[in-house]
C-alpha cells in the first residue's frame, strides 16, 4: 500500500486568551495504520528538528479508554469514524478524501466551548467537567470492610443500563459536537449511571439538581435534542440518558429535593 501525503490545517494558539489561527503543515510518508496522533507526533518531530514550537495536543492511553485525547477533525469531534476516539482513528479513514494541491487535506481544531478555554494550540481546559462531578457525581458508602458482593442484588437490565451510562470517559466530544455547546450528554450519563443502582439512591434527588445547576453555572449551552453528541460519542452513549436526567430533575423538583 502506498503511503499518503497530507496537508494539515492546524489551530495554533500560544496561550489562553491569545489570538490564534489555522496554520498549514505538510506531512509525507503517512501509512494507513498510523493514528492521527501519530501523524501529529511525526509532524512535531519535524517541527522540533527545524527548531519550531511543536503542536500541543492532549493524549494519554492511546487505546480509546482514558478520554484524554480529543480533536475536531474536518468539523467532526473525534473525526469521521463513529464510536472511535481520536487516538484510535487510523489514517486509512482519510483515503479518497478532499485534496488540495494533490495532498489530502485535514483541518484540526480544538474543542470549542466557552467553559473549555484553550490552554495552548489543541489543548483545552476541561476542569469544568470535574466541577460537575464534584457537585453530585458520587455515592456515599460506609467506610470499613467491603460488603459481601452478592448482598446487594441488582437486576441485569438495571446493571446494563448503569454500565452503559458509566462507560462515559469524559472526553467532552459531546460538548464539542453540540451546536449549542451543551454538556447535557456528559452530565446525563454521570447522573444516569447512579439512577439505576441502589447505591445511588441516597443522593438521588440532590444529585440531579446540583449537577444540572453546576452544568449551567459553568456556562454550557442548553440542549436542543439534535443528537450530534450521541453520534460522536466514542462510547456510543445514548441520548436516552438525557431523558433520564430530565425525569430525575423533574422528580427532584416536584419532590422538593
Amino acid at each position: 500500500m502506498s503511503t499518503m501525503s497530507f496537508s494539515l490545517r492546524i489551530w495554533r494558539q500560544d496561550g489562553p486568551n491569545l489570538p490564534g489561527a489555522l496554520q498549514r503543515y505538510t506531512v509525507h510518508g503517512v501509512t494507513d495504520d498510523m493514528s492521527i496522533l501519530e501523524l501529529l507526533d511525526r509532524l512535531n518531530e519535524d517541527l522540533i528538528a527545524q527548531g519550531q514550537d511543536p503542536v500541543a495536543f492532549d493524549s494519554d492511553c492511546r487505546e480509546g479508554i482514558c478520554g484524554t485525547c480529543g480533536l475536531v477533525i474536518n468539523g467532526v469531534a473525534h473525526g469521521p469514524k463513529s464510536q472511535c476516539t481520536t487516538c484510535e482513528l487510523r489514517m486509512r479513514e482519510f483515503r479518497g478524501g478532499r485534496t488540495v494541491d494533490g495532498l489530502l487535506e485535514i483541518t484540526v481544531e480544538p474543542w470549542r466551548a466557552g467553559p473549555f478555554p484553550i490552554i495552548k494550540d489543541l489543548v483545552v481546559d476541561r476542569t469544568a467537567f470535574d466541577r460537575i462531578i464534584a457537585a453530585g457525581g458520587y455515592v456515599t458508602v460506609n467506610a470499613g470492610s467491603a460488603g459481601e458482593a452478592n448482598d446487594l442484588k441488582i437486576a441485569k437490565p438495571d446493571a446494563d443500563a448503569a454500565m452503559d451510562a458509566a462507560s462515559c470517559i469524559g472526553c467532552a466530544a459531546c460538548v464539542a459536537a453540540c451546536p449549542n455547546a451543551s454538556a447535557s450528554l456528559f452530565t446525563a450519563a454521570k447522573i444516569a449511571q447512579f439512577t439505576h443502582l441502589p447505591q445511588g439512591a441516597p443522593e438521588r434527588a440532590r444529585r440531579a439538581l446540583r449537577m444540572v445547576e453546576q452544568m449551567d453555572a459553568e456556562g454550557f449551552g442548553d440542549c436542543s435534542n439534535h443528537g450530534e453528541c450521541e453520534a460522536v460519542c466514542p462510547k456510543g452513549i445514548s441520548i436516552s440518558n438525557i431523558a433520564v436526567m430530565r425525569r430525575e430533575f423533574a422528580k427532584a423538583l416536584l419532590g422538593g429535593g
Partner: protein
Amino acid sequence: MSSLGTRVWSSVGKKLISGLTGLGLVIFVCIHLTGNLLLLVGADAFNRYSYFLEHLGHGAFIYFAEAGLVSFFALHIVSGISVWRRKAHARQVGYAVRGDAGGPSRKSLSSRSMLYSGILLAVYVPLHVAHFKYGGPPIIQLDGHEARDLYSLVVTEFKNPLIVALYSGAMLFLGLHLRHGIWSMLQSLGLLNRRLLPPAVTLAVIVSGLLAVGFLLLPLYVYLNPQVMPLTGGLG
C-alpha cells in the same frame, strides 16, 4: 442550593417548560385542524362549529382557552429564545470547518431551523388571529340566533392568491417546526428511552406531515374549487 425559580429556569427546567408547552400547542393544533376540516363539510357545519366554540360555557370557555394558549405561546417562545441566547454565549468562537456526525444524530434542517421557523410562526399567529378571529365577518341567522358567518369570511379570503400563498408558506414552516418539535418535546419531557426514541422520530415525521398537509388542504381547496363560494347575500 439554588432557589426554586433558578431551578425552574435552569437548562433542564426550560426543556421541561418547552416540552410541556409544546405538547399543549401540538394538541391545540390537532384540535384546530380537526375543527377546520369541517370547512370541507360545508358552510352550515363550519358556522355551527364556530358558534359552538364561541358560546361554550356561556362564552367563558373561549376566553379560558385563549388565555391558556397565549401563556403557552409566551413560555414556549421565551424558553426558545433563552436556548438561543445561551448558545451564542457558550460558543463564541466557532469552527472553521463544520461537519455532520451522521449515524444516530437527529440533526436536520428542521432541528437547525427551530428558532427561525419559530419566529415565523410567532409572527404568523397574531396576524392569523387578527385576520380570522377579529376579521369582521357578516352575520347570519342560525336557528334563530345571530351568528358570525366565519365560513364566508374564510372562503372570501382564500379566494385571494396572495393570502393562499402566505398561509401555505406558514403551514410549511409549521410542518418544519413540528418535524423536530414533536419528538423533541417527548424527549424534553423525559418520556423517551432507547427503544421509544426511533418510533418517536418516525411519529414526528408522520404527524408533522399530516398536520401540514391538512392545513394546506383548506386554502388550496377553497382557492381551486370554483363551487366553493361565500354564502349568497352574506357579504356586505
